[in-house]
Every structure is written in structure tokens, then in C-alpha cells.
């Protein structure tokens, strides 16, 4: 089986700052793959490189073995890359329904003309109901998106991304700002996406609980470089990883 996403020696620098240095890893379909590292390591930059907001200086990115390194970001979205953001990006002045319909628009890809003449796409309400079963809150469609709490908006962003029927979802720190119950709900939702639909998930997270519980494979980034790759048990014992997160005991190494 081919990896759904493959990075091959991807490099990106911004002036003097090397954000990505020879990064190579892959994500299989239906797999939840963790992307961890200390703050400023370059995780969000990698997400931006994969979704096309940045173009790599060198190296290649493959979606289902198709080279997308130079494909513009809106085309990558149409090819099946879904994305959520650290701070949810919604339409501030629109209803929740319109916000979520944006997701279905991408899944349907029927173009402006057909949509104008009322051609109906996938069954939006049914799908949404099914997804919302995993989450613990309800809402009124016509309400402003601002009426929802931060945690609810974060969860809704994942729902919107799933409505786009992606092949791979890039999920950026979903647990930040959520309480424990909500984190459990998100984990169930991501598992549902991966196991039921075969969606690959690349997950940036700082919450080790979530990472260790849900990820089959993890890649660790520090200062733009991959410093470790493997399953949860291997990563939690890896010296380089421990040093990156917890630091090295200088006294111990000197004595």
C-alpha cells in the first residue's frame, strides 16, 4: 500500500532561519501519525508546506505518490488535503450552517454555476448528524459562529474538515484549550475518521496523553530536523527526544 503522504528531503528557510531541514517521513492511509517537537521546531511550518501555503526550497512532497510540491494550495485542498488550524479560522459574520457548507462545497466540487442553479450535493444534514454524535454539544444552525465557545469551535473545525471528504487531514493542536471530556471526544472522532474512512491523519500535539494514546507512528522534529521516528513506546525512550523536551543534565554529563 502506498503512503498517502510522503515528504522527501524537504527544506525551507526564511532568511537565516532554517524551518525545515531535509525532512523525510510518510503517512499511511488510515493511520494516525503524530508530529511532535518543542515549540518553534517547525511543525506548523511543515503543515503549511504540506497544504501549500509555503513552497519548499528543495525536496518533494507526494500526495498518493503524485508530486504536489509546486501545486497551489487550493488545488491541493481539492486533491484531498484537509486542514485545521491552531486558532480556528471561521467566517466571523456567517451562520454556522454557511461555515460548515464550505466544507461540503469542497467535497462536492461542483463549481459555482451548478451550485447556483440549485444542484444538490451530498446529504449535508445526515453526514453532519453522524459526525456530531461523537461530540458533546448541539447548536442552532442559524446562530452566529461567535456564539460557540472556543473549544466547540475547535471541534467544529475538525468536523468541517471531515465534511470535505479528505484523503489526509492535517490537524494542528486540536487539544489546546479543550477540557478532558472534549479531548476524549476529539480522539474518538479522529479514530472514526482514520478507521472508518481510511483518512490519514497528521497530528501536531503537545498533549502527550493524546499522542501516546492515539498515534501509531510518530515523527519528532527539533530545529527543523527529524530527530526520531517510530511508535509511541520507542519514542518515549529515545534519548534525543527526551533531551529536546526536557533538556540534558549538564552536571551529570560533566561528572
Amino acid at each position, binding site marked *: 500500500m502506498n503512503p498517502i503522504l510522503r515528504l522527501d528531503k524537504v527544506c525551507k528557510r526564511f532568511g537565516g532561519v532554517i524551518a525545515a531541514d531535509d525532512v523525510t517521513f510518510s503517512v499511511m492511509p488510515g493511520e494516525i501519525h503524530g508530529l511532535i517537537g518543542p515549540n518553534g521546531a517547525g511543525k506548523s511550518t511543515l503543515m503549511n508546506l504540506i497544504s501549500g501555503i509555503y513552497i519548499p526550497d528543495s525536496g518533494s512532497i507526494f500526495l498518493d505518490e503524485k508530486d504536489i510540491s509546486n501545486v497551489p494550495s487550493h488545488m491541493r485542498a481539492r486533491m484531498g488535503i484537509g486542514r485545521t488550524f491552531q486558532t480556528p479560522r471561521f467566517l466571523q459574520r456567517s451562520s454556522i450552517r454557511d461555515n460548515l457548507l464550505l466544507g461540503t462545497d469542497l467535497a462536492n466540487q461542483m463549481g459555482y454555476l451548478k451550485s447556483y442553479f440549485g444542484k444538490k450535493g451530498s446529504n449535508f444534514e445526515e453526514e*453532519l448528524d453522524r459526525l456530531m454524535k461523537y461530540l458533546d454539544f448541539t447548536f442552532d444552525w442559524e446562530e452566529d459562529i461567535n456564539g460557540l465557545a472556543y473549544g466547540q469551535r475547535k471541534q467544529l473545525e475538525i468536523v468541517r474538515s471531515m465534511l470535505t471528504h479528505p484523503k489526509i487531514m492535517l490537524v494542528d493542536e486540536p487539544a489546546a484549550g479543550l477540557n478532558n471530556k472534549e479531548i476524549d471526544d476529539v480522539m474518538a472522532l479522529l479514530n472514526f475518521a482514520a478507521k472508518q474512512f481510511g483518512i490519514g491523519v497528521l497530528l501536531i500535539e503537545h498533549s502527550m496523553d493524546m499522542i501516546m494514546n492515539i498515534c501509531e507512528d510518530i515523527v519528532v522534529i527539533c530545529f527543523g530536523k527529524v530527530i526520531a521516528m517510530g511508535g509511541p513506546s520507542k519514542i518515549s525512550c529515545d534519548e534525543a527526544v527526551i533531551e529536546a523536551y526536557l533538556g540534558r543534565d549538564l552536571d551529570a554529563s560533566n561528572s
Partner: protein
Amino acid sequence: MKKMKSYIKPSSFLIFIALAIFVALVPAVNQGYSMMILNLGLIYSIATYGLSVMLGLGGQLSFAAVSFMGLGAYFTANLCSGRLGFWVDTSLTLVLVLIISTVVAFLIGMILFRLSGTYFTFGTIGLVQVTWSFYLSYKPLFGGPDGISNVATLRIFGWSPVDYNQWFYVLVVIVLIVAILVERIRRSQLGRSLSAIRDNEIAAQTLGINVYMTKVIAFTIAGVLAALAGSLYAMHSQFVSSDMFTFERATSYIIMAMLGGVNNTFGVFVGSVLVTMLPEWLRGMQRYLQLIYGVGVILLMVFMPMGLAGLAGNFGKSIKRKLRSAAVKNAPAEKEDAK
């Protein structure tokens, strides 16, 4: 999960009733000169609808409406006044205006949207100045400072409006069609994509929206509607001159949109009519008109940025809230709705 509300809201019904009354009563009380002014308000609203697609939905501030109005107006004036040596039927001219403005607006949009944000806005200002200087000075096509007169009036299937009252009915029908078209855009994928571009361009890209082309499409729609307004203007007033297409005129369309509520289909109509009629109603205070206008715009932005429609919407929401709390007080035994 609550079911999605159906399309027909009570407010739409109210609007329909208000419109019916408006159309029935107005010709009775209005004639001649003031009817002409009202007709102009209707014509301008067509251009303002185009502007609401660009600015309200797409969040792109464009002054280009007057350039395209001029395109429609002068094209019509040249073909329908015989000054080039031949006459073209006015209905055919309308169709030609629509076709040509689509092409021109598309091309200019493709160029202008190489710029983004404020730079795009300055691009449109530049466009307005360029077109206006042509409209003012190039005699062969635009009649120079004297403009073009003797433009034929609209003729459909052998019928022409004989006075401003009959023009009123024609324009109401056209404005209604345009309003419905624009409202449908708002509810379609194009409307949502434009709102996404307005509120969060990066997120829009990651949602598969081709930001550049979508902006160009919106610009084209705005341009076509403005050209249509220009063409109707030429046929209604039977005279076209360049002072209709100045930068100052361009700002008045933006104020029309903002006054009514740039994102509300009914509001655009109300705003256009009000801004056009106000100078007439305030005739007595001619000297203070500019002052009133200026102060009014400032107050509008501070207290009613969502325009009259926003005001009405807030009013409706506070009434709903009061009704809801009254219902809760009167029935404490009932289970409260889960939020």
C-alpha cells in the same frame, strides 16, 4: 439537532408586503420630477447590488462601478442616438452591453487582482480616473464636456415607456430580478466562497477556493451590473455626460451600500433610494447638504456599521430575546430548551 429552518422567513414576507405597498402607492403620490429622481435611485441600486457582491460578500473595496456604468451608458448612447450614423434597437443594445461588459470586466479584473487588498482598491481608483478623463475629453466617442444627447428610450417588443411613471414599473421589475439573482448568489457556493475570502483568505485556500479567480468572477458580476445600470440610465435620461462617472460619484455608491447594509439584499435597495432621494427632500437646506451628508456618514460608521439592515436585525433579535424571556417567566414548569 434542530432541523434547518426553511427558506421563507417571516421577515421575507414582511419585505414582500412592504414592496407591494410601495409599488402600489408610489405612482399615486409621485409624478414628474420626483418620480424621475426615484427612478434614478432604482437605476443606481442595480450598480449598488454589484458593489454589494464585491464589497459585502467578497470584502474587496472597489470604486470601479462608475467606470463600468460609463461603459454601459456611452455604448448605449452611441448606438441609440444615431450620432455614429446608424441606429441600433435598444433591446439589442442592452444585450450587447451585457456581453461586452462581461468580457471587459473579466479582463480588467484579471489585471487588477494581481494586486491585493488596499493596492487593489487604489487600482480601481486609478481606473476610475482614467475612464473619467476619457469620458470627459474624448469627443469622437464620448461627446466631450457636452456629453451625448438624444438617446432613444427603451423599446421592448414594440412598447416604450411614455413617462417616468411607466419607467418606474419597468425599473421595479428589473431591480427585483437583479435582487433575486444577487440573493441567490449569496446562498450559493459562490457567495460562501467570497465570504471565506473576505474573512479568512488563508483558510479559503485550504478549503479549495481559487481565491484569484473567485475575486475576478465577483468583479465581473459587479461590472456587468454597473454597465446595465449605465445603459438604463442612458435610455431613461436620454442624455449622458461625464459628471455621472466621477470619483465623487463612485463614493456615493459605496455609501448607498453601507447605509442600507452592505450584506443585506433589501438594505441595498433601501440605501440606494434613500441616498438618491435625500438631497431632494432636504431641498430647503441646500446650503447645509454637504455638512449633513458628511456628519451622517460618520455617524453611520460609528453607530450603524451594518447599516439600516443591521439596525433592523438587532431590533428583531432584541424583540425575540424579550419574547423568549417573557415566555420563560410565564411558564416556569416547562423544561428549558437544551442549548
